[in-house]
């Protein structure tokens, strides 16, 4: 320490101190922000993939998203949205968008898996973003469905409905049903926050917790209704319609029978 204090008036001391401070802050920041970083790139893309993806992008996406994917008045920039975003939007048929509207809707997929992978490679090469999740983290059988159910009810159920059947938002927008959505697309929707869905980064819901949520969704999908007709699991809308139509129909039929004369 004595040696250090003797050199504290050295002309380069301030410079050295500044360098040290920068290193420490940078180190702490890097350590603190690792949670936000995307999962390790599990799908490896080759330069050919990026090249092919770039061509596909120019032909199919650039009219809205702009050459170089920097965005336009019609569509947002795709720099930094990550491979997961492309895989979700194109893999569920939401992109390319069929028509302008409150939100892009799922429809038959327009590209092959190989083409989607190449476009994902291209967009991922533009800037760091959430990667396509690994096979292990998507394994629903390894998740805790009960814990996933609790997380789902806190974070997802208010829009997607407690039975994941979807629900309405404002101005014609809606949260879609999750029934039948693949594990990979569920995971990607959480990390990328497509359209009006908030982002649930790994710092908010850890990858293992996301796996639990997927386990819960797959469990309720497989086991079906705990009794009786589900009526779309939409709650008072479909149940109310049923009881007003069928229930009142039965009441009217009984009334007619009650007042009719016996033969």
């Amino acid at each position, binding site marked *: 320490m004595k040696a250090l204090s003797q050199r504290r008036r050295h002309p380069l001391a301030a410079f050295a101190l500044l360098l040290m401070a920068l290193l420490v802050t940078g180190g702490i*920041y890097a350590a*603190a*922000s690792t*949670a*936000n970083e995307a999962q390790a790139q599990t799908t490896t893309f080759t330069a050919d993939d990026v090249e092919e993806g770039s061509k596909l992008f120019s032909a199919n996406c650039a009219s809205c998203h702009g050459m170089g994917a920097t965005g336009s008045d019609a569509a947002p920039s795709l720099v930094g949205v990550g491979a997961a975003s492309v895989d979700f939007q194109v893999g569920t048929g939401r992109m390319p968008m069929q028509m302008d509207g409150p939100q892009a809707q799922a429809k038959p997929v327009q590209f092959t898996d190989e083409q989607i992978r190449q476009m994902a490679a291209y967009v991922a090469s533009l800037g760091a973003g959430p990667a396509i999740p690994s096979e292990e983290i998507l394994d629903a059988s390894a998740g805790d469905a009960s814990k996933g159910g*609790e*997380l789902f009810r*806190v*974070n997802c159920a*208010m*829009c997607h409905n407690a039975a994941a059947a979807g*629900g309405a*938002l*404002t*101005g014609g*927008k809606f*949260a879609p049903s999750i029934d039948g959505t693949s594990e990979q697309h569920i995971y990607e929707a959480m990390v990328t*926050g497509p*359209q*009006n*869905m*908030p*982002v*649930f*980064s790994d*710092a*908010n819901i850890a990858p293992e917790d996301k796996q639990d949520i997927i386990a819960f969704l797959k469990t309720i999908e497989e*086991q*079906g*209704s*705990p*009794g*009786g007709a589900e009526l779309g699991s939409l709650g008072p809308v479909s149940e109310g319609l049923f009881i007003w139509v069928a229930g009142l129909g039965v009441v009217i039929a009984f009334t007619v*029978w*009650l007042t009719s*004369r*016996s*033969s």
Partner: protein
Amino acid sequence: MADSSHGAPGTSVTVATPDRELDEFENPGLPPHRPRLADRDRRAEKRAERQVALLFFISVLGTLLFFVGYFAIPLNETVERLRLQNLMLGLGTAFAMLGIGVGIVHWAKTLMPDHEVTESRHEIRPERDRQDAEKIVNDILDESGIKRRPLIRNTLLGAAILAPLPAIAIFRDLGPLPGNTLKQTMWDTGVRLTRDPSGTPIRASDVTVGSAFHVIPEGLNEVENKLEEKAKAVVLLMRLDPEELNPSPGRENWGYDGIVAYSKICTHVGCPVALYEQQTHHLLCPCHQSTFDLEQECKVIFGPAARPLPQLPIEVDDEGYLVASSDFQEPVGPSFWERG
């Protein structure tokens, strides 16, 4: 009307005189009595009897089905068992009730006597009855002398008004008064924002733009009356581009670098307002579609809510975690009498 015999079977009376023909209907009387099958045919009667008994027996079977489902089906991990049990409980109860109901109606319709009965309407308010009642009231007033003795009248009035007051004191003892609990929550200076349900603290750097966190105060999972506290203290934490927030004077430092926290309890009737649209920055209440605009400090832009959602002032502590700067500055949730 009193002496009318309208409607008696077979004695239809016509009161129409030639000059009143246009004013009055001719009373058609009752249709001729038609005996039912069970009245005419002994075998049909027996058959109806058996049908009623069968319906009652179905009810018995329904009740048995309920108890078989309740006791004989042990629930296990699989949902199939639950489904089977629910089915048996539901069908059993339905058959048990419907069997009795349908059986009784069928019994009444086929086997119980079906002769027609008519009853004439009695005269409405005879003048004599009204006079009798008036006389009784006047007698009471006269005999009690309440008009002549104002002292008695006034003391009786006073006593009658005061007598129910002890009831208020007794009702007050039914439970503790709410005191200040409607105006306070668990949030206080330095209380960390933690994730719902795990209770882990949140760093400012964890909250990326576009994300939404469902937040409870630190230590909520340990308190005794957890649900009561949670019902008041739940918060939604979101991060926007700081440019898009327009804080009013005095509220500039209630957020941190675009991170803002708002009460999740709707100011209309207290549903959780948790439907966050990250592109429009609208918060939607699923119960009555009240919509709050995050860019205008959660002002109501649609729906029945009367007040904006209360904002929780937040800051960052020495370790980088988000903490509350204070409790909410106004009571959360729907209006109440003493809210002011």
